[in-house]
């Protein structure tokens, strides 16, 4: 019999087991996909379990990882950024066309961040303050950037990327490429900001219920603006890392970057207003997607098959979340 002064009893081991089971069930689909792929890898090819191969996969995933981090920020506050392709196209063209060859290298690096920042500010103003549709306004910004690139390049591929910039992908510390370090460091920074800064709570509140957040005094428009600006800067850094992995520039970085970024974000447990995956979920999702595509290549599955698998993954991940709780 317990008395008023007695200490509450420690949770039973059964309770702990139950909690652990619910925690595992509640994990974003990305964790399950990665676990299944790792389990299957030895049976598919010995190369897939080679640690060096994993470093290569992580290195290739770094630009996508940063783009996913950016997309997850805006999706947390129920918005979307379709200007990823435009920022990539513009920044890659400027860096590889030789326009900045006569300037010091730091200016090229700054250019990526400034382009991302300007696009982020434009998107943020349009979505948060002008209250234009996020889909249409970010798409328009992307169309303008791609159009400018096509006009400047007259449809021709630009030159080679700066040699010194390639060190971001080729250089490493104990086998870990600089691009992976940038990706991990940026993810940790965002995670810490979400955990310890007030802006993290604002993001969560706005994502949960924008109207309630505004009623309780949270600056709704400013929070959405900040999410777009931060996403723009992160997309600029993603474009920088992407250029460092290319020998020759391109004017058509493709819609794939956006599609993969969206797929990884959803797979990682972040969707419109839902933030179950945190920063780790999308990170794991990027690794899982890259590993999956590598495995599909081993099986000899070409672009059409990969598109179908990508679509099925997005649909399944979204359906799992949708059936668990409300609209995502």
């Amino acid at each position, binding site marked *: 019999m317990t008395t008023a002064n007695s200490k509450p009893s420690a949770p039973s081991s059964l309770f702990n087991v139950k909690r652990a089971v619910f925690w595992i069930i509640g994990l974003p689909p990305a964790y399950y996909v990665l676990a299944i792929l790792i389990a299957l890898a030895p049976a598919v090819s010995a190369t897939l379990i080679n640690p060096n191969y994993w470093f290569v996969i992580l290195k290739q995933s770094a630009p996508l990882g940063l783009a996913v981090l950016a997309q997850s920020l805006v999706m947390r506050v129920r918005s979307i950024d379709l200007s990823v392709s435009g920022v990539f196209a513009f920044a890659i063209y400027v860096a590889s066309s030789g326009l900045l060859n006569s300037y010091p290298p730091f200016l090229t690096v700054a250019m990526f961040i400034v382009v991302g920042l300007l696009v982020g500010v434009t998107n943020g103003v349009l979505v948060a303050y002008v209250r234009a549709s996020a889909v249409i306004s970010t798409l328009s910004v992307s169309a303008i950037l791609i159009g400018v690139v096509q006009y400047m390049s007259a449809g021709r591929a630009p030159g080679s990327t700066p040699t010194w910039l390639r060190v971001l992908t080729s250089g490493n510390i104990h086998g870990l490429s600089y691009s992976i370090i940038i990706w991990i460091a940026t993810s940790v920074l965002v995670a810490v900001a979400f955990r310890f800064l007030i802006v993290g709570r604002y993001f969560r509140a706005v994502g949960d219920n924008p109207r309630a957040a505004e009623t309780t005094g949270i600056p709704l428009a400013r929070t959405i603006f900040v999410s777009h600006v931060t996403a723009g800067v992160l997309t600029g850094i993603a474009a920088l890392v992407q250029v460092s992995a290319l020998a020759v520039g391109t004017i058509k970085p493709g819609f794939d970057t956006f599609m993969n970024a969206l797929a990884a974000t959803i797979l990682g447990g972040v969707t419109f207003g839902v933030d179950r995956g945190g920063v780790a979920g999308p990170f794991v999702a990027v690794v899982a997607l890259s590993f999956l595509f590598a495995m599909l290549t081993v099986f000899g599955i070409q672009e059409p098959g990969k*598109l179908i698998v990508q679509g099925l993954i997005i649909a399944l991940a979204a359906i799992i979340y949708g059936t668990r709780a409300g609209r*995502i």
Partner: protein
Amino acid sequence: MNTVATYLRVPYRAGAIRLSIGTLVLMVLASIIFLPGFLAGENLSNLLAQSTTLVISALGQTFVILTGGLDVSVGSIISVTTAIMTLDMPPFVRVLLCIAVATAFGLVNGYGVARLNVHPIIMTLATMGIGQGLALIILPIPGGRVPDWLSMSVAGSIGPLPNALVWLVVASLVAAWILYRRPFGLYLFAAGGNEFNARMNGVPVKRTIINAYVLSALFACAAGMFLAGRLASGDPKGGAAFGIESVTAAALGGVHLAGGIGSIFGTVVGAAILGLVNNVMNLANVSAFLQSVAKGALLLVLVVSQRRKTIGL
């Protein structure tokens, strides 16, 4: 004639359609004054043929947007349709197969959004990838041959009327009939305006949403058939641009992406504006590469001028 006028009337929930009409009229007037070749029969015929695929796909998109959703898989359905129309089987079977595939895509999209609570952008993006993959499996590279009757139905004319105009008018009248003459049309406005209120008033919201996606897919199928007839061949990536352009056309025509506000006439006007931008820039010898900039800028101006009450997608 009165009936046609009634079908194309501008209801009070048509959105900022006056702005769209004004923009179109200004563009047409400027084109007539500054571009001598604009009114030439060949140019108008080209303009019509280039715009019809977009108009038909945008009409279907309007049903979905009215519910507050978005269907970006429209482009893939167009691509799959053009690919199927080149298959080596009887023409009748090809048409039936196109309709069956489009209906299946529409049902999956609608069921995912209405019953499984998936966000429309995510659901249709997933089926967009699946559809694109399917189109590339059926027809890996552009080519093949579509039935002769399909090419003739697009390229020919009935008296002075080009067939493309007939496709456009029939599609618009069918869409207007569904939206303004069927209870389903009223349900669309109700479900998009306020889902909870609509449900409380007995509107079958989920069924309405599913039907909207099926209709969007069927209109995309019709757009794909028109495109296949115009190209006289298939193109597995030929529809890719229409997924986003159809949304753009509807938005330009005053259809609110939040749902509940829009009109068929507005969508036709929006698609006409987009078609005219390309045509006018070609006639004015402006670099084709600047067309994307012009379209983006025009869209930004129109979207900015339609300030909404809430922030969001």
